[in-house]
Each structure stands twice: as structure tokens, then as C-alpha cells.
């Protein structure tokens, strides 16, 4: 079998998250492929709009939700713009799942802090629902999510659902200037919000995704709170083509993001050449 051959998937639902960010819900066309498909939270795939090419996104839905996958993307390049033009019932290509995953099993019996910025909530959301769908296996769950403005917050319906649950602590924030008169969350940069709301690192795993600058400013805050670098997990989002370790594009030193990642601990990232 040619490893570059995608499976065909049908778009069954489209959700516009923001003015330029969209979520596609996809089902495999071939029932045999659908039945055999398995993945873990944090893994990614190559999604194709035929005629335009392939693009790399994480799987944004949880492996506990069977029968479909979701991906969320910002229309910013050729492929993502094409994926925005097509509608429900249309066909896209998918190769995957590729890469490693979040340590969900290792996190069992511990508390979890989820931190996400902007569309970085997509890979974190996959892990959040994975944990929430098995809620009694984990201790405290805290979610800190921020975006540049209220309009840039993604998965708004789910943010409301999470806000109403009493078994999660949810802290939402927007950057100064991004608030609306109705906004009830914080108005501050994300690292500050973590400092204000997260009390302890004890017995807690941190999963954090967002733009490089957010990660860079958040890691020292988590360290100050007492998080060991081995307990902080993030994903790296290097440009990829094959996803299979062949095309030579995503490496950071001898680390291949597609094969060794995309999930890395802060400790692993500190050891890499700082070229990401």
C-alpha cells in the first residue's frame, strides 16, 4: 500500500468558530476503515482538499467519541482556504493518525491543568473531552483558556458547557482591549491569569498549547508554581508534508516532530536546539 494514499472522508457537519476558524466533523466513507480506525489524544493527520493539497492538523475530537473525527483550522493558506470553500456532504482526504500522544493513561488518578491560547485549544480540547468522558478517573480539572479578543475564542458552545459543570474550574480570559461590554471573564494576558488562579502544582499534570510566544511566557510561570518540566506537556506545530518521517521538513536537531512528537514535555523541549 502506498503510504501517501489518503482515506476518503465525508464532511457531516461544519461549525464556524470565529470569522476565520472553522471545525469540520468528518466520517470515513469506507465502513471497514471506520471500524478499524483508532487514535489517541494529541495525534495528528494530513487532511486534503483535492486539487489544492494537504495540510497538517491535530485531531480535535476525543478518542472517546467514536465514529467520527473533527479538525479545526484557521483559513490562512491555500489548502485551508479550499477546505473552507467546501460544504456538508463534500469529500476530503485524510491520512493518519500519526505521531505520539498525551499521557492520558499516566495522568489517571492525578489532577490536570489545561492551558490553551487561541486555536491552540484544538489539541487541548481533544484531551479535555477525553478526560471529561472518564471524569471519575481523574482528580481536579482546571481549564485556563485565552484569546486575543472575545471574537477569537473557539468552541464557544463547549466553553458554556464547561462553565456550567461543577467538576471543572474554568478560567477564561481575553487580552486587554479584546473585551466586549458583556464579557464576564478576565481581561489579562494568559500567564498572568495562571498566576492569579492556579494555586498549586501538587499532583498535577499541565497540558499547554498555543502560539510560541504564549508557551514561552507561560513556562516560567508554571515553573514558579512548582510544576516539574517533566509534568508539563505541549505540542510543537512545525511545517510538515509527509507526516511519516520522510520529507525532512519538521526536524529540530535530531528530533522529528512527526515521529517523536507532536507531544513533548517542557523538559524535552529545553534539551532541543532552540530552533522552533
Amino acid at each position, binding site marked *: 500500500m502506498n503510504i*501517501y494514499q489518503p482515506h476518503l472522508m465525508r464532511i457531516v457537519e461544519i461549525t464556524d468558530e470565529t470569522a476565520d476558524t472553522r471545525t469540520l466533523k468528518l466520517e470515513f466513507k469506507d465502513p471497514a476503515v471506520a471500524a478499524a480506525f483508532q487514535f489517541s489524544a494529541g495525534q495528528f493527520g494530513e487532511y486534503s482538499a483535492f486539487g489544492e493539497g*494537504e495540510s497538517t492538523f491535530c485531531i480535535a475530537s476525543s478518542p472517546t467519541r467514536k465514529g467520527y473525527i473533527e479538525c479545526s483550522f484557521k483559513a490562512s493558506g491555500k489548502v485551508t482556504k479550499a477546505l473552507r470553500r467546501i460544504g456538508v456532504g463534500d469529500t476530503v*482526504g485524510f491520512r493518519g493518525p500519526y505521531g505520539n500522544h498525551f499521557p492520558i493513561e499516566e495522568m489517571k488518578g492525578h489532577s490536570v491543568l489545561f492551558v490553551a491560547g487561541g486555536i491552540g485549544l484544538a489539541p487541548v480540547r481533544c484531551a479535555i473531552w477525553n478526560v471529561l468522558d472518564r471524569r471519575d478517573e481523574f482528580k481536579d480539572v482546571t481549564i485556563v483558556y485565552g484569546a486575543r479578543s472575545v471574537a477569537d475564542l473557539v468552541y464557544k458552545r463547549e466553553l458554556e458547557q464547561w462553565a456550567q459543570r461543577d467538576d471543572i474550574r474554568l478560567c477564561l480570559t481575553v487580552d486587554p482591549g479584546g473585551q466586549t461590554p458583556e464579557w464576564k471573564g478576565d481581561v489579562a494576558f494568559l500567564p498572568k491569569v495562571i498566576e492569579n488562579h492556579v494555586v498549586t502544582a501538587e499532583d498535577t499534570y499541565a497540558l499547554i498549547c498555543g502560539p510560541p510566544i504564549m508557551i514561552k511566557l507561560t513556562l516560567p510561570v508554571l515553573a514558579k508554581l512548582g510544576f516539574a518540566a517533566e509534568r508539563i506537556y505541549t505540542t510543537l506545530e512545525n511545517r510538515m508534508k*509527509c507526516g*511519516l518521517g520522510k*520529507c525532512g*521538513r519538521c526536524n529540530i536537531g535530531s528530533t522529528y516532530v512527526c515521529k517523536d512528537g507532536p507531544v513533548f514535555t517542557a523538559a524535552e523541549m529545553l534539551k532541543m536546539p*532552540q530552533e522552533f
Partner: protein
Amino acid sequence: MTQRFLSHADLGALVAELVAAHTRVIAPVRAKDDARQLDYLPIRALADAALGVALPRRSLKEFFLPPTEVLLSYRQTKEGVEIKEVPTQAQPQVILCASPCDAAALEVVDKVMNWEYRDELWFGRREATTIVSLLCSIMDSSCFCSAIGLGPDSSRGSDVLLTPVEGGYRAQVITPKGEALLKDYGSAELSAAAEAGAEAAQLAARARVANNAPAIPAEFSAWLAENFDHPIWKTMALRCNGCGACAGVCPTCHCFDIVDEHESSEQGVRRRNWDSCQMAKFTLHASGHNPRQSQSERFRQRIQHKFSVYPRRFDEILCTGCGRCSRICPGGMNLPEILGELMALAKSEPEKSEGSGQ
């Protein structure tokens, strides 16, 4: 390994029979656009080949990883998308009088092509191909195969290795594929004179390349990793134009891009095209962020990938010392010189450089 004697007539008869059976035979021939240069091209008869003249301009890479190839074709209608697969089995072909460095490169690249996921397009062509190499006698000052642990008489990646002797060749049969190719040709008897002649030719060839560059020590890959942030990278890359010509002619550079091309509103193809880490867009994120913004960072990636990343991942140097990158570089960058400079630095500053790591 067995040995045979092949006369020039035997080799000519082998080519004639292969061509008659519609097997593609590829050999170094005079380039159509420049008679001083050679290309690996299909031949109809042994007389078409130019042997022992020069290293062909490009390596054998393109016969296994073509500069552009179709990965699939698609047809898009109202009912959905149909994908037409491409065959992964290839037509049999024989490469005759390959340069040993070019044959060795294929085995080096096999490692990444078989890394967890097997690239069936690459291996389909590898399996369908028999490679007959010829002892190299055409080295110049850019060659440094012996520094990599290869040599002008290396049989690595070859099914048969030919060494010129009086009246023909000593044929060393390395693999069952080579055995199958030669079983009806030449004689199993190799005279003592032919044997002695072949050994003398080997020694003479080795001596001609041995002093071009010092051997690369095993600890060099670790030193490169430790010295990722050494200031030398900035000054070293000043002459680099970032044109990527080095990657095109390199027998081991295998980086590629995947793109779709419309043929009409309904149908088109997905292609894999050669790409190079020397291009600024190679690592450019959709957000505009680029982990390798300057040419010095992209040049460092090329050296690090070949002499540190690949050795640490696959226990192989991603280079065969063929020297093509030095011959083609418009900026006059010379890889054996660059390696010499880095190895001298590794000797004088064995520790991690200031500012390394973070």
C-alpha cells in the same frame, strides 16, 4: 561473494540481451547539451556508454526518487471523489557502470525510506533494479569518499562491482541479484594476473582520493549537536546563496514537497517534488513564523542533518563524499574544506561552545 572474468565482448553481449528483452539499461553517457559532461541515461548498446571519463553530473537518485512523480490521481464529481492509485511495482532496470559512491548512497537513503513506514514507491524501484558498479578512476579534488568510510572500490549498494583488468573486468558478485544477472556471462576462471591487476587498480584508486580529506571521527556527530549555536555557523554560511543546487545534485538529499495540480476543474494529480532545506519557504509556518529565518540557519541544518542528525538516528552519514555539491556551488562552498574546518574546531574546542544549547 564470487568472482568472474568478463571480457568487453561479454559485457557488450549482456547489454544487447537486456535491451532486446526490453529491460531498461542505464549507464553514464555524454550529456546531450555538453559533451564534456556525463549523465546517467538509458543506452541501446555498450558503445553508447562513456566509461571512466567523469562522474555524471547528477547521481542515481532520480531513478528511485524522481524529481517529480505522481502519488495519486483524483477525479472530483458531484457524487464525490475517486482516487486512482499509482502502481508501486516498477519495471526491471539495470544500472551499468555506476559510480560506487552513487550505489552506496541508495543503501544510506534506504534507512529513512524504511523508517517505520515503508515508502513503497522507493522500494518498488529499488527491488526492480540491479546495480553494476565500476571501480572509480575519475576522482578529482572535490571527492572525499574515503573520509566517509567508503572508497573508489566500495561495493556497498552494488549487486556487482567491476574492476578493469587486461582484456575486460573482474566482476565481484555481491548479491543474488548480481548472480542472476551474470550467470550466463564470462567465466568463473579469473587468472592470477587478472586478480593481481584488479588489486593494483584498487590500491591505485584508493591512493588518489585518500588525502583529499581526513576521516570523519565517530564523535564528530555528537560535537556538531553540542555546538549547534557555535558562532562559526554564521561566518561559514556567508558565501551560501541558498539556491539549493547542492541538494539537487546530492545522491543522499531526499527532502520533498507534496503538492496537488489541477488538470481540469474535475481532475488532477498529487505530486511529490524534490525540495531543499536551503529554501526559505521550506519551514515557513502558515502563521508567518519561520524557525529557520536566515541562510546561516538553513546551511547549518544541511550540515547537521548529514553529519549529526542522520548518524544519530540511523547510524549512517548522509553523504558519500561524491563532491557534486562543491563542484556545482555558485558561491564556491566546498564541503571537504568545511568539514576540515569543523573537525579542526572540534579538536581545538572539544567542549560545548558558549551559548550552545539554549
